[in-house]
């Protein structure tokens, strides 16, 4: 895992002026690039990410954009480390500011010895650690257009951080080679303009040196992309959705991925249509998914209940954001769990599966599709904004770990052996053998009304009880099919963490920080949230004296679910919650545990 920021090589010569010091070696660094939306902060982050990856470093990026197309403050953060990372660093080493607002916003995030690199053609800063470069003016006067200022900034950073010049240039060539030759040429010039400006400034260049790493066999992806890939590999062939931040990329990736596989992706007129289109396609026998976020989830709720009682497999990816109502569309939260656990009017079975890493996003999506199909019910794939949209390096995805489980789907030959076919046949595990409509000899009568085994509407009280048990007890019978938790840290540790989703990264780092303090901890990464996995949670809680349930909401929703399921362990559970729209940072988590001791 990560080497915390405090572990970068100490420098004895701090009292010397810049130019006379040896460069400080960085093994884990963070750069924050801020400006107005449209300033190209993402471009700078992208260029840096390409450089760091070429040098074998792990990379994690996040962006902070307002819910508008252009304008307004926007910033991108990038962290690079010799060790795997899945969260932002607590503090920033370099702030790149295209306007003064970026300085105001970024300043509280800075390390004590951080630098601010700002565009002095836009504003002036008197801060002692601020270095001004007229990026926009330089790009405008020498290249005709100020838009090259972001590449110029990248050039200046390369000088400050002692980048390898050949790799620095290679990044520009790769990034812009698909554009016009003119664009490539101008960006290469912009790179030199920025680099030269920094080199000419006394005491600025080679302030740092970024260590090379050995993470060369990595991919860079976001959770939403890994989910889309997992869906395709799981045999998912029908997707309908409605654009909503932070879920939209799933639909956009699938629009590219599915057509060559006879797949269909539809952008529906609303979330009501999206969930009902996937229900129709599921009935017809396709493996289906929709994706949404809070407001869309609310609209889909009736449909998800319909799928639950009609026993139609659907996967709903919920990319959680700040709610309720429109909330903060681009900000991070994990506040839909309580709603999902108790989703809908009436009662129906559902599984809630929660990936915590980019790899999880791929493999657990495959599991979710199989589980829905086998158990014939809705499966919620619970994600969160940070996991969905922050890009990071990850181990390559492994197809040999994928599998397809059709459950009790009948072949035509098996169907021919039957003397009768009932769509909702009572069975020991609640799963009725199925063929899709279009198969000769078997009619699929499906309804959201209570129904008998034949799918005909029924209000018979005896039938009602049997049907309720058939559906609800799937949550019991499926126990051993559901994704298991992952455990991290020594098994004898008396302090526990429980978390899901993107809290994985901060918790793993907090564990390392605490371990350095001699505080061993054990982390239960929940991957099935509902039904609450008492058979794994109870032994975990028995092994610790206290368990911190880390989550992004006000009420401590996951902790409440666990308390409800395991009241005997009530006293051991402590909530660590955060609901300001931002992800946890490891040092804050570690501090919360230290304070409590």
């Amino acid at each position, binding site marked *: 895992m990560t080497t915390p920021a405090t572990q970068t090589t100490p420098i004895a010569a701090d009292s010397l002026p810049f130019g006379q010091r040896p460069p400080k070696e960085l093994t884990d660094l963070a750069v924050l690039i801020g400006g107005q939306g449209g300033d190209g902060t993402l471009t700078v982050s992208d260029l840096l990410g390409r450089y760091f990856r070429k040098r074998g470093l792990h990379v994690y990026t996040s962006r902070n954009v307002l819910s508008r197309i252009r304008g307004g403050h926007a910033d991108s953060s990038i962290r690079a480390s010799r060790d795997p990372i899945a969260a932002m660093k607590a503090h920033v080493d370099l702030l790149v500011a295209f306007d003064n607002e970026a300085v105001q916003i970024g300043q509280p995030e800075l390390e004590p010895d951080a630098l601010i690199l700002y565009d002095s053609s836009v504003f002036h800063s008197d801060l002692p650690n601020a270095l001004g470069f007229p990026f926009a003016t330089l790009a405008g006067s020498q290249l005709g257009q100020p838009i090259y200022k972001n590449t110029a900034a990248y050039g200046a950073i390369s000088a400050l951080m002692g980048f390898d010049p050949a790799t620095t240039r290679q990044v520009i060539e790769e990034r812009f080679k698909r554009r016009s030759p003119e664009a490539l040429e101008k960006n290469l010039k912009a790179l030199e303009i920025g680099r030269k400006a920094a080199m000419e400034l006394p005491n600025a260049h080679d302030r740092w040196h970024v260590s090379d790493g050995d993470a060369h066999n990595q991919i860079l992806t976001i959770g939403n992309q890994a989910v889309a890939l997992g869906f395709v590999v799981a045999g998912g062939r029908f997707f309908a959705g409605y654009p909503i931040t932070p879920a939209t990329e799933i639909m956009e990736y699938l629009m590219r*991925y599915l057509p060559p596989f006879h797949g269909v992706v539809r952008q529906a007129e609303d979330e*009501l*249509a999206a969930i009902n289109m996937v229900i129709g396609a599921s009935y017809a026998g396709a493996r289906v998914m929709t994706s949404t976020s809070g407001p869309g989830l609310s609209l889909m709720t009736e449909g998800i209940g319909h799928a639950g009682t009609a026993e139609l497999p659907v996967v709903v990816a919920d990319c959680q954001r700040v709610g309720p109502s429109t909330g903060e569309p681009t900000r991070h939260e994990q506040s839909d769990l309580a709603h999902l656990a108790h989703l809908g009017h009436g009662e129906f079975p559902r599984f809630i599966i929660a990936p915590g890493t980019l790899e999880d996003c791929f493999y657990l999506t495959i599991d979710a599709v199989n589980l829905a199909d086998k158990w014939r019910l809705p499966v919620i794939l619970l994600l969160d904004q940070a996991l969905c949209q922050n890009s990071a390096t990850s181990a390559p*995805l492994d197809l040999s770990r994928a599998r397809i489980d059709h459950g009790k789907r009948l072949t035509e030959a098996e*169907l021919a052996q039957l003397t009768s076919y009932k769509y909702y046949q009572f069975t020991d595990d609640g799963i009725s053998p199925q063929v899709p409509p279009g198969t000769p000899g078997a009619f699929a*009568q499906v309804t959201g009304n209570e129904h008998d085994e034949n*799918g005909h509407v029924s209000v018979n009280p005896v039938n009602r009880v049997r049907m309720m048990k058939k559906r609800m007890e799937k949550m019991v019978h499926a126990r051993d099919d559901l994704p298991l938790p992952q455990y991290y840290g020594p098994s004898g540790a008396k302090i526990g963490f429980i978390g899901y989703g993107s809290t994985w990264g901060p918790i793993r780092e907090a564990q390392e920080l605490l371990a350095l303090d001699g505080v061993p901890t054990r982390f239960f990464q929940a991957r099935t949230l509902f039904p609450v996995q008492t058979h794994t949670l109870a032994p975990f809680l028995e092994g610790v004296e206290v368990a911190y349930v880390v989550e992004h909401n006000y009420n401590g929703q996951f902790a409440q679910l666990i308390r409800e399921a395991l009241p005997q362990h009530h006293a051991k559970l402590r909530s660590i919650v955060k609901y300001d729209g931002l992800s946890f940072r490891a040092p804050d988590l570690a501090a919360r545990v230290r304070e409590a001791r």
Partner: protein
Amino acid sequence: MTPLSVKPVASTWCPGCGDFGVLAAVKKALIEVQVPQHEAVLVGGIGCSGGIHNFLEINGIHALHGRLLAQAVGVKLANPKLTVVAAGGDGDGYAIGMGHFIHAFKKNASILYIVMMNETYGLTKGQASPTAPIGFEGNVEPPFDAILTALSLPAHNFIARTFSGDPKTMTAVLVEALRFNRANQGYAFVEDLSPCVTYNDTFKDWRERVLDVSKLPGYDPTDRKVMFQLCLDTMEKGKIPIGVMHRPAPKTTDSADSLELKLLPDRIGPAVTGIELADNLAAYDKLIKSVT
């Protein structure tokens, strides 16, 4: 092959309900166009009329209130070989389902949508529906007209209005609509005037007022503008226009406008394509490796 599934249940409709006419006409039309029984899917709405799939020996899905068109389009796109009929009431289609109602014309998937229109919510005992005349159960809003709306939406659709009091014509129209669908021409919408004998028995009134527009001079169902005017003129005279309102010139497969052919030109849908890992491994490997 003898069906393994059980027989349909007896209808729950009131004696004399207009919906019996639709049930009979749907049955006859499916037989006439020779839809293989296992390849027909009936998607029912919520309301009295929506139970129709229970009364036929057929694949059926009973949708959520207002959502039958979304589910029907999902079925069709998942397996374009299926003949998909959506059928429900005017409350289901024109009130709670209005968003999907409009979009169905635009989507233009080759499904047939039959609205059994009776101006009232029968199942909840007689409230005004969006088509109710002013004064009915305290209604103060002018009635919605589905045919005028359908004619205003430019798309390659089949549009017609029929009357349950004339089952022969209705059957002929449904046959034509199903043939339009099965030739992958696009969406077919048929509004059937289907009186609720309990809460709004309009049989006698409608029998006197219906006017078959195909008998009028200037009738041209390929021309929306002409048909819109013809319908408006008919309505101004206190009559209810019925008949085929839009019958676009057939498109060839190459110029197909239907959603399923645009998305799935080889007609192999998501529900019937091979998803086994072994068959797709090379393509998956390429896809996964495209992420660097």
